[in-house]
């Protein structure tokens, strides 16, 4: 009915269209998906700040700069005042810190580039996760090994629920480095041993044990009061809530 040439043309044309569609689908789908596209987002910051130096080498704990993460939903990016706590004396003349000094004198905040962001209809609360003794590294990765911080986890809803349902498989229990309060007194000689404080992330995942035996809808023990004598009281991590309004309110 059709000529041989026309038949061949249809086949080749179909194959080309199919291949182009496949490439567009792959690039579009995987390039835009959060779990693929967001991980590794590593924006250039106004100040060449190195977490590897400050927390890896100098062993400054997370909460020194991100103070207030324990009390508020938002983990604060440090104020310029926090930088100048040390940098009035340490490397006070460094040209790399010119932006910080200018900000300190003018009072205009440094415009850090935001890396981790959940959609605006998600109400993630840092303090609740800190109170459940979930280490910063569970979500932010080995920040003390990152010269320039990049996003480590996808921050998708599926990823959140993975952990809310099976925390014992995903959570890294609180480590002394993060400054997450556990209510436990550490031996000073352990703290002075930097390998105790800075275990690499892979080893930590290996040794992290279930914090609690999760039981549906309940915690191992009664939920302790939020504060005791004015001091925030941690609670054991259990399974997280799964109802929609826990995060989308």
């Amino acid at each position, binding site marked *: 009915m059709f000529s041989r040439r026309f038949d061949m043309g249809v086949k080749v044309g179909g194959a080309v269209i199919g291949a182009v569609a496949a490439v567009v689908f*792959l690039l*579009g789908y*995987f*390039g*835009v998906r*959060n*779990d*693929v*596209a*967001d*991980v*590794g*987002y*590593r*924006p*250039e910051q106004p100040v060449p700040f190195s977490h590897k130096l400050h927390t890896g*080498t*100098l*062993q*400054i*704990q997370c*909460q*020194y700069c991100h*103070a207030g993460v324990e009390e*508020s*939903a*938002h983990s*604060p*990016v440090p104020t310029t*005042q*926090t930088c*100048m706590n*040390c940098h*009035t*004396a*340490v*490397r006070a003349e460094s040209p790399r810190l010119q932006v910080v000094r200018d900000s300190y004198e003018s009072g*205009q905040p440094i*415009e850090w580039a*935001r890396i981790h962001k959940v*959609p*605006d*209809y998600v109400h993630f609360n840092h303090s609740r996760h800190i109170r459940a003794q979930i280490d910063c590294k569970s979500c932010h990765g080995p920040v003390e090994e990152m010269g320039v911080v*990049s996003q480590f986890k*996808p921050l998708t809803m599926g990823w959140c629920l993975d952990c809310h349902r099976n925390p014992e498989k995903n959570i890294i229990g609180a480590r*002394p480095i993060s*400054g997450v*309060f*556990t*209510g*436990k*007194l*550490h031996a*000073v000689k352990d*703290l002075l041993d930097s390998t105790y404080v800075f275990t690499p992330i892979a080893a930590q995942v290996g040794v992290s044990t279930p914090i609690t035996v999760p039981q549906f809808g309940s915690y191992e023990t009664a939920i302790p009061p939020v504060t005791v*004598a*004015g*001091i*925030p*009281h941690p609670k054991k991590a259990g399974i997280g809530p799964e109802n929609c309004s826990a995060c989308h309110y």
Partner: protein
Amino acid sequence: MNARKLPILWILIGLVIAGFTTLVLAGKIAWFSDQPPLEFLSNMDHQFKAIPQSGNTYFSDRASLRNPVAGTVAIGAQPYELGQGDIDAAETANIDPNLPQTEFVLARGQNRFNVFCAACHNYDAKSNSILVQRGQWPGIPDLTREQTAALSNARIFHIISAGQNLMPSYADKISVTDRWAIIRYLRTLQGVEGVASNPPSATTQAQ
């Protein structure tokens, strides 16, 4: 063209694409990029509302965090009124709440000490931290020495709250209760009991 080689080539290409897709989906391949992630239909991801520490075009200085109105104090805030030099006033103004010597309080004190003090004063309060070892900040006193151990709790509270010499004030970072818990823990490192406060004259002599 050899008809037999064609399917093998396509199968290989298919396997490569499938393997690549699997690795990407499994999170084994990540691209580092300084460009914001692409968004396909970013429905309500970015709403016009004030998010902490974000830019906001509603205000002329483009900051969503607003400074408190002059002369006001935030609910629950406990500002420290004394300056660095008011040593004598500190002895009477800072009243030790006498936190119980429980492990919970000491653990909190240790936690806050490790977070805010250990960067310079080290985990054992001997002020030989890595920062000091690198010669970045010489002259930080050993907190376990006799001279420091003799200071009253009220005076140490004053130093944490108002700062001393190059050490800045930590009143904005450490809550009042936490500061007393830190002192409780510091006393265990010093191995002394500590006194709540000294009469002003005695403090001046201890200098």
